[in-house]
């Protein structure tokens, strides 16, 4: 299907991206043939689409108890804990095979109107995504979406409705880029990813067709509106392989890189992305705290302080505080660092918000590691129950002390990566001068956040199933 839109203009000879070091994975014949194959990534999409259909069916029509429902286990014990790991290992590859993307493409193929993305969405889409993510997190706590199979099913159907609307109206993967609640999170997390896709500037400088963006009649252009020639971030690339297939010059390279490397050289920091990075830390705190025994005490205190036991009110206040604390702390660090690097608070906030992302990923994976490893067998148990085979026994894959040890290690890794990222951002933007004065306040912040996570992981957590 040809995309009815103007080609990229102009194709200039400015070379914004330096040659990508590292071995090009596409030089491997097997990998190159696989990516260029007509079956890639379709075969993965069919698989995820089928599983998605089964999951939605089970959530809506299966057992009403979460611990008996395969849909709940597959979504919240398996997929949700694994997705940040996916982002680290393979960037936004999940987005390339996500069932929502497939539904979008199907709707677009048959009834799509391919309108351009509205300017409002281009400008504020990231804020829409952030708001949706927070809304879903809030809804889960207030209405219990995770432990309600029907609730989870309805949530997926609501999102599917949004996908259908987007696919019917707009071009390419407008949903994935500007509306998907996971888009902001995956964009941020993918920056820590170990795989990079880039063009070869020397080959692109001679190109006059930009098939990577426009398509070539047989293969569509980039569904995520990216232009590989100028792409300096992996936050949007979903490894669909279209650019690899369509490029007439074999310019595309896929290389392995150090995790978080992309964060070291952020040239155009965006407040929305930095804010999301900070807010995610608050959300991880909320998710942790509400699963601990101490939560009842905290809740009672808030009820006393607010003179209401309405959970909607008390939880909203809790969530707001949990998000405001990291924002306030980062603002404080930005204020102090600004005295050293002479940059504005806003600019410091926007730049160094990205430094929190590795710790975000570590804390997120750490929290969900508990669910995956302490309840992981529930996926198998509930799958067997689909065929009438009852299973008994512990759902744990590993014991709690081992899981805790892994969580602490993850926080340690995340802290190290975040500290180094803060250092590199400082060197990139402010040179060798004022390194200590700039890095120190952020280092204290990162240390505080890490200690908070360790303390929370030290306490016994409730299960989802």
């Amino acid at each position: 299907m040809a995309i009815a839109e103007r080609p990229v203009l102009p194709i200039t000879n400015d070379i914004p991206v330096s040659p990508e070091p590292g071995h090009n994975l596409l030089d491997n014949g097997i990998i190159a043939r696989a990516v260029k194959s007509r079956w890639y990534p379709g075969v993965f999409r069919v698989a995820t689409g089928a599983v998605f259909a089964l999951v939605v069916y089970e959530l809506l029509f299966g057992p009403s108890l979460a611990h008996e429902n395969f849909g709940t286990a597959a979504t919240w014990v398996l997929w949700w804990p694994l997705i940040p790991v996916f982002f680290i290992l393979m960037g936004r590859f999940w987005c390339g095979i996500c069932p929502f993307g497939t539904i979008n493409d199907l709707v677009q193929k048959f009834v799509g109107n391919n309108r351009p993305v509205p300017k409002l969405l281009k400008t504020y889409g990231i804020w829409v995504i952030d708001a949706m993510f927070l809304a879903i997190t809030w809804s889960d706590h207030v209405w219990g979406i995770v432990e309600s199979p029907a609730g989870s099913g309805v949530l997926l159907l609501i999102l599917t409705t949004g996908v259908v609307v987007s696919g019917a109206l707009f071009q390419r993967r407008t949903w994935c880029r500007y509306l998907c609640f996971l888009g902001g999170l995956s964009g941020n997390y993918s920056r820590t990813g170990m795989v990079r896709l880039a063009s070869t500037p020397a080959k692109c400088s001679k190109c006059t067709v930009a098939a990577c963006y426009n398509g070539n009649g047989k293969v569509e252009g980039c569904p995520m509106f990216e232009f590989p020639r100028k792409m300096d971030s992996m936050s949007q690339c979903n490894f669909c392989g279209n650019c690899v297939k369509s490029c007439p010059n074999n310019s595309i390279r896929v290389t392995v890189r150090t995790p978080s490397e992309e964060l070291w050289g952020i040239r155009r920091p965006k407040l929305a992305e930095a804010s999301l990075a900070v807010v995610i830390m608050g959300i991880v705190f909320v998710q942790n705290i509400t699963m601990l025994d101490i939560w009842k005490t905290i809740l009672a205190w808030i009820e006393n302080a607010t003179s209401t036991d309405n959970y909607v009110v008390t939880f909203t206040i809790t969530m707001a505080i949990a998000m405001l604390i990291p924002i306030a702390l980062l603002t404080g660090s930005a204020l102090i660092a600004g005295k050293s690097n002479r940059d504005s608070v806003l600019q410091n906030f926007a730049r160094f918000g990205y430094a929190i992302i590795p710790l975000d990923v570590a804390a997120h994976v750490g929290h969900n590691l508990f669910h995956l490893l302490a309840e992981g067998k529930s996926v198998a148990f509930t799958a067997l129950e689909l065929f009438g085979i009852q299973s008994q026994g512990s759902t744990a894959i590993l014991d709690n002390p081992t899981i805790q040890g892994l969580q602490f290690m993850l926080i340690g890794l995340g802290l190290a990566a975040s500290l180094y990222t803060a250092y590199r951002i400082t060197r990139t933007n402010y040179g060798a001068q004022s390194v200590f004065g700039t890095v120190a306040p952020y280092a204290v912040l990162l240390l505080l956040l890490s200690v908070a996570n360790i303390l929370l992981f030290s306490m016994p957590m409730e299960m989802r199933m």
Partner: protein
Amino acid sequence: MNTLRIGKFAGGRVLPAVVSGAMVLFSLLAFTRPALANDPVGGQLEQVTGATRVTMAFDGGHATRGLNGVTVNLRDSTGVALESDTVKVTLRMDPSANMGSHSMLNLDPRTVEMGRGMARGEYTGRVEFTDPGMWLVTASFDLSGKESEVTFDVDIAGGGPNWLILGGLGGAMALVIIVAAVARKRKSRDLAS
């Protein structure tokens, strides 16, 4: 997208085949699904404490979400009805079965005092199960000055999908698809002319 090219390549037969396959799969699941064992045997729950046999039964044979009529019977080991000055039924959701719940709603216990039924040793009342899930239903009574209680596990099923919501969302999707198809056809016609 390449997924769609697969359909084209195979002569347009892949998509209908996938849809048909999905329908068959769903049908198979519907028949292989084991019966959900929410109901007690014979529609009656029973427990023994000391020399007292306590039975609890819900109107209609099983408890459902919402208001339920409940009957508690007290008998001794020989089946003779026993009378208590007060019989109370307390409901609370089982926190261990509903763990992982982020929502703190509906965890507070609620107590209902039962009235005397038609027969001796029979006590009736109405209780409300506000949410699906596992509930702990405790019947407490007083026999010859001695207080006792027994607790029953009552599993409240979700009551099936909310067809209003499902229908609404499905209808919205269908409407969007139809409108988009019509708009696209008009656009193609305008371009052609």
